[in-house]
């Protein structure tokens, strides 16, 4: 039997203990689902794909932000005790579900949208995969927006305006996209105290990212790119 403590309530709330039967190859998401289906149907949580593709089931498991669907209980609950809380650094809606609005609004503020150039080329633009810029873009392109890095980031906790690792990583992939025409505005949007220059390179984002992306490296790239733009008078 697993002793599971689950956050109940909103910003103000409390941990409630449940006993859940231990099973082989059980994930934390299995445990949360068991509680909601068998013990307390009022438990609110979020999930969709169950196989690590959608990025919607991230929660704080024994103090660390994780995808619950890809976290086996026996790997994180050595003593049989499990504590499941909502993601940190985001407002709690209810129980284990957080409001991701500010997280995705910050992607927009970081100009995380592809900007096509005004002149439409006659043919497809060929982007050789081996070029340094494309490799840098590819390194960060697999982000699925789960919010694990954002919840693990100390700077987000200290500075509510900070864009966060995921949004800045997204901006860095577009800075390295040779087809994109929005970099003049984008570099201005990601520079400064709410942007890449606030990062202290603690690397919690890179450590916790389930996709093993390195947002700290992406942010360091933005620091270089914005510094170069400033030196050329183009920021």
């Amino acid at each position, binding site marked *: 039997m697993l002793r599971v403590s689950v956050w109940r309530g909103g910003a103000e709330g409390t941990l409630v203990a449940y006993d859940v039967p231990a099973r082989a190859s059980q994930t934390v998401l299995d445990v949360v689902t068991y509680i909601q289906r068998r013990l307390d149907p009022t438990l609110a949580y979020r999930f969709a794909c169950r196989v690590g593709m959608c990025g919607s089931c991230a929660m704080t498991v024994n103090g660390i932000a994780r995808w619950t669907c890809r976290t086996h209980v026996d790997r994180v609950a050595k003593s049989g005790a499990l504590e499941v809380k909502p993601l940190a650094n985001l407002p709690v809606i209810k129980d284990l579900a957080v409001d991701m609005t500010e997280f995705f609004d910050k992607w927009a503020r970081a100009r995380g949208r592809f900007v096509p150039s005004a002149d439409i080329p006659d043919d497809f633009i060929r982007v050789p995969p081996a070029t340094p810029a494309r490799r840098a873009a590819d390194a960060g392109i697999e982000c699925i927006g789960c919010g694990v890095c954002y919840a693990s980031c100390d700077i987000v906790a200290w*500075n509510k305006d900070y864009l966060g690792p995921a949004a800045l990583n997204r901006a860095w992939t577009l800075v390295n996209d040779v087809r994109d025409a929005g970099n003049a505005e984008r570099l201005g949007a990601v520079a*400064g105290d709410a942007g890449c*220059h606030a990062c202290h390179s603690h690397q919690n984002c890179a450590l916790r990212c389930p996709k093993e992306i390195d947002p700290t490296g992406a942010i360091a790239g933005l620091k270089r790119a914005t*510094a170069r733009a400033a*030196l050329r008078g183009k*920021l």
Partner: protein
Amino acid sequence: MSARAETWLWLAQRGAAIVLAAAVTVHLATIVYAVHLGLSAAAIIGRIAGNRAWLAFYIAFAIAAAIHGGIGLRTVVRETTPWRGASLELATVLFVVFLALAGTRAALALFA
């Protein structure tokens, strides 16, 4: 403060850090050298007084430390307190100027 200004502050702090990396190394090496020779304070002052090169080195060291520390302190204040805006920028400038002047004054007293 604008993104451009913040970027320049970041560049200034990194530039000062490069100066500090070299200056601290030289500073520590000379301390170790002086201690190994068993020099007294009077003997050290006797050797360095009037040396323009050391004076320039320590004035540059003091100014770099003032810039690096001042910008860093501003960041710490912004991360740990709600203090923002023009009053903080003014306080930062005053702090940097005070540190640079105090360091320059000390260097002048020793080397000039």
